[in-house]
């Protein structure tokens, strides 16, 4: 009993001491650091590279930064601008540490930062993520206004809310739900969100083809089959790719030596609904084979763009004569926008050459030889070839 009383006294003393500490420190940052020191530590995190480069400086810097007052959250979020993905995660981790330790509400500052479009998109996205945890209702209201936000993270959150909202609306008002889904469709950039909206509209009787919604390129010229037995064709530069890399154009009237004799370019189209170009169907389920595909894409301006390929087969892509991606992976999953590469779209005619490789696996799940391809802006918005 006596021991218990002593314990209570100690606890009371501790409590009073803590109150005193809080009072004394009111208006001050217990761990405040000057901005130069903070920026130096942030730079250490921003400069981490591949294979542990810069970690000797980053580890102590992270230890320093996690003691930062939450009042400096803007500086931390600003540091996320133009970081590589690994550095971004170092900063995320430290920012979460700071937020978790903060005894003061951060909602006001987070709201201000997230909604200021002059701030960097990654930082704004993280600010909203933190706000969702601290003040979910406030965050939800703000997110609903971000359907066309330049921050992809915020736009994705807004589209998600719009999809869920339309789902709820569809139980009472189909027309309104269709209208809401249409708004979400126009704003959506992520392929999975696009796919969900298309499916939902379909269930409400509104047919929207995947090919149209994603702006998949469906008109191609095809040259196949060339040899890929034992996978030799992936790194074999057959005549069309040599020609294309040299001149950026191809003679579609020329004949080539194929796997079993002469072959020539033939038109091939993607399916109307999914925009899939099915090479297995076109070439009688040929195995150990390669197909080259060529299309033209007209742009009315020079602009940054992305080539986006969904393909369960090994593949290479050249645009205007330059290799933009290569993936030597067979039958290990596929979806729209599976592989993405940046490239400069030029004003006028752009030529896209694909090399799609089929191997000789015999399993039932290894028979597909097909692809879906599109060109988008850097946000993922599908671009259509100009007439």
């Amino acid at each position: 009993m006596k021991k218990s009383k002593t314990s209570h006294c100690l606890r009371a003393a501790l409590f009073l001491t803590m109150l005193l500490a809080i009072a004394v420190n009111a208006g001050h940052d217990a761990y405040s650091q000057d901005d130069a020191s903070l920026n130096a530590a942030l730079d250490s995190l921003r400069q981490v590279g591949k294979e542990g480069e810069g970690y000797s400086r980053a580890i102590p810097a992270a230890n320093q930064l996690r003691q930062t007052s939450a009042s400096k959250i803007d500086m931390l979020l600003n540091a996320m601008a133009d970081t590589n993905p690994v550095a971004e995660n170092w900063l995320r981790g430290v920012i979460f540490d700071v937020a978790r330790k903060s005894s003061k509400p951060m909602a006001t500052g987070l709201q201000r930062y997230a909604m200021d479009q002059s701030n960097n998109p990654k930082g704004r996205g993280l600010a909203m993520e933190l706000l969702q945890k601290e003040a979910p209702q406030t965050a939800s209201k703000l997110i609903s206004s971000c359907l066309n936000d330049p921050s992809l993270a915020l736009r994705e959150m807004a589209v998600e809310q719009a999809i869920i909202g339309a789902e709820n609306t569809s139980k009472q008002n189909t027309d309104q739900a269709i209208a809401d889904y249409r708004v979400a469709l126009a704003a959506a950039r992520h392929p999975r969100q696009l796919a969900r909206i298309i499916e939902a509209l379909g269930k409400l009787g509104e047919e929207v083809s995947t090919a149209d919604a994603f702006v998949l390129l469906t008109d191609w010229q095809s040259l196949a089959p060339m040899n890929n037995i034992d996978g030799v064709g992936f790194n074999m530069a057959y005549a069309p790719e040599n020609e294309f890399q040299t001149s950026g154009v191809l003679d579609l009237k020329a004949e080539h030596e194929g796997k079993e004799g002469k072959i020539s370019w033939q038109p091939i189209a993607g399916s109307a609904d999914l925009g899939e170009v099915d090479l297995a169907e076109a070439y009688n389920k040929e195995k150990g084979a390669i197909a080259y595909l060529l299309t033209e894409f007209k742009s009315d301006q020079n602009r940054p763009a992305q080539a986006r390929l969904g393909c369960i087969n090994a593949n290479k892509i050249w645009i205007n004569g330059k290799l933009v991606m290569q993936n030597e992976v067979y039958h290990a999953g596929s979806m729209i926008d599976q592989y993405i590469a940046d490239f400069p779209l030029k004003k006028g005619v752009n030529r896209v050459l694909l090399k799609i490789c089929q191997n000789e696996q015999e399993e039932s799940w290894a028979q597909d030889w097909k692809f879906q391809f599109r060109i988008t802006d850097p946000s993922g918005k599908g671009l259509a070839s100009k007439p």
Partner: protein
Amino acid sequence: MNQNSHPLFFLINKNPRANRPAMNTLSAPTPSTAARRGPLTNSIGTTVFLVCTACLIWCVTADTAKGAEPTNNSGSKSWLGFRGDGTSRASSSAPEKLEIGDGGNLAWKLKMPGRSVAGPIVVGDLVVTTSSSGQDGEVLHISGVNLQSGKLEWEQTFRATGRPFCHPTSANAAPSPASDGQRIFAFFSSNDLACLSLSGELLWYRGLGYDYPKAGNDVGMASSPVVVDGTVIVKVEAQGDSFAAAIDAETGKNLWRIERPQMSNWASPLVIQRPDDRNEVVIQSRQGVIAVDPRSGKTQWSTDEGGSAIPSPTSADGLLILPSDEVIALNVGASASTPEVAWRNNKLSPRNASVVASDARLYSLKGSVLVAANLKDGEQVWQKRLKGLGSSWATPVLSENRLYIFDQTGKGLVVEDQGEDAETIHEIELGEGVLGSPAIADGRLVIRAANTLFCFQ
């Protein structure tokens, strides 16, 4: 039952252990040491703060002495990686029944922030589990949950730097995390590797998918890391960049990286101890098995005997159990040199789950048929069709003579090895698929279902 779904963001480490300096002796700073680094603006406030902090540490340490049990590999309060110590066998007794509702023994369950097919680990009183969410599973969550109360203590969230795609039945959160008792190493299918303190603080972060962009496949990776001799060893075998690597647990830098066959393989590495007290890491592919030195990556011995693409190797009582078209036992305990084959049995080959071993027996799950064999000679003792068990990916766990087996619909069985036969003594429906191997610690069974963490006592 304590069902807690509140985000922990606002819970400022209610469990006093979370910020206790002694729990992280390597690199994470304590509040007081960190405070010394930077200029403070108010000396009175500083003094009071430090006094207050010291009092607080003293107070909570005194109050929680019982909760500060050792958290190293051998403690019954720990389950530090996929299949615990690599055998799937617990040193503590797990509950004999699994029952939800009145009179049941569900201690708590907790809704998680995303999906997972990874097993949980337990470090002292902390359960660590990973989840992934987002459109492609690109949002990575690492959650620290109090083993006793089921309350979320902290959560970290990252973005995948590698390929997050996977088969719909899997998740980016597929490899089980691992721990050395002082730090947590959370690995994902996208080949992101985060090192956290036991309080959830980020110590370092590697994006192996960023470093090696062709690593991984879009079915999903699943090999779990192991921690040994101050290294975290990951096995990333795929058609593109295919490798195994040791990463220094303290610095996050590569100690070594070796090329592996360019074909998909989901089996996890395994640490074995040789008679001369050296540790070796066993790495299997369909082309064979190698054992490497953890610090140098140098191959100590190898065999052309193939290894499975999915089930992982197991060790018990001086034997290394290799799954393939047959199960092969290598005698790694007899000498420190290249091990000899002790026995082989083509009737024991498991389908998806890894072989479970005790000192006397091994158990192999072949679809819904469980086979028991003598560990010593590989002779089958019994086999039992497990009624109601569907497709199973989670490696069962063993406590005393009871196996805990779950299928991908969430049906769970407690199967008792009765010597010459076996019997299902309890069944449970969790309502969510379980694809990760459970953990047993401190008399509790912790199960990670797709979106919920369960703890039975």
